[in-house]
């Protein structure tokens, strides 16, 4: 954890403390601070904006109620991502018969200012992620997108570190397999966990 992470966590803890005392302004601040990363994280689970908002609000509703119970065993971000992950899985179960997966991104949903390079990158990533399982996508997002450690991801997903390590390995293998453009000097062999 670098200095920026330590400072951010200290701020988050202060906000949680204020929330536990019923401070709605602290809730609003934490909500705005996490909205972007939660949107991206949850967009790996579903493409529906209404479901993403529902999950974010469920997550902060729980954070609001449990702010006083936060023991500080992990970073606040790990705690919040864990809540969001469980709320996301619950939403997936509830909307299980609805189209939550959408490999095609409608034009109107893409940000208005999206450089061509970014669009290409999104398409490249989209092709890879759709080949991964939900758990693998979540691990990739938490490690590469959110910058969490293996221990953090294990806490968020409530799994042993070894399981997370294996998911990360298999996800990377699959991504390399379906995104071979940059691969050089590859060999073919059976997939096995490290």
């Amino acid at each position, binding site marked *: 954890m670098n200095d920026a992470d330590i400072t951010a966590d200290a701020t988050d803890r202060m906000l949680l403390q204020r929330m536990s005392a019923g401070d709605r302004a602290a809730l609003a601040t934490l909500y*705005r601070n996490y909205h972007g990363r939660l949107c991206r994280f949850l967009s790996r689970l579903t493409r529906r904006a209404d479901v993403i908002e529902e999950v974010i*609000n469920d997550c902060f509703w729980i954070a609001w109620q449990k702010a006083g119970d936060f023991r500080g065993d992990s970073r606040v971000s790990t705690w919040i991502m864990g809540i969001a992950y469980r709320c996301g899985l619950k939403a997936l179960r509830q909307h299980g018969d609805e189209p939550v997966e959408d490999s095609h991104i409608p034009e109107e949903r893409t*940000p208005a200012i999206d450089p061509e390079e970014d669009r290409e990158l999104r398409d490249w990533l989209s092709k890879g992620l759709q080949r991964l399982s939900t758990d693998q996508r979540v691990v990739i997002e938490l490690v590469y997108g959110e910058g969490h*450690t293996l221990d953090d991801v294990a806490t968020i997903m409530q799994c042993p570190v070894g399981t997370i390590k294996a998911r990360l390995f298999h996800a990377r293998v699959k991504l390399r397999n379906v995104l071979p453009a940059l691969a050089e000097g590859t*060999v073919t062999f059976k997939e096995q966990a490290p």
Partner: protein
Amino acid sequence: MTMLPTYSSQDCPRAWEMMPWVLQKSATQEQSEWLTHHLAHCSACRAEFVQQQRLHQAMSLPADVEVDVEAGLQRLLGRVDAPTVQEQPLRARSGSWLTRALVAAVLVQAVGIGALGLKIGSSSEAPAYRTLSEAPPAPVVSGAIRIVPDANMTLADWNALLHGLQLQVVGGPNDVGAYTVAPVGARRATAHTLQQLRATRGVRLAEPVTDTP
């Protein structure tokens, strides 16, 4: 079948494992330097690292699903305010109903056990038996005596006897012609009174009346 980079040396698996942590800057400086050194002379890992950098860059792009943060926040704040008048009382009420139901159940059980105890207690007392031919028990006067006079005894003799022994009729005659007499006032009949009655001519039977047969 899966494609993986060629492991050109024993260091390649370590380099492969270290890449994400170097990219997210959680690796130590020593680890970063080691990887940089390894990449300098391993083309396979270099290619993999380039792909990892691209993956990291792509994952760092903002979400492509637009969700209005302020609209969502307003809905959340509305939800936060609403529970104080809706959800919390509902939860509290459901909790108190459960408690009340349990208390009521315990009270009903206690009353039932108490009633059962009383019934058992009362049935354990000595029962007052009487034969079917016997008259319903009259209220027992303390020190009462049951007398059966002879049929030939005159009323004057009967009255004189009672008057002499300071007795008065309190019951009877019953089906067998027995009278119940008791001392006048609060005085108890003594054994002497009983002996005098038994010794009197015209009295066929004189027995003290007890509370239980």
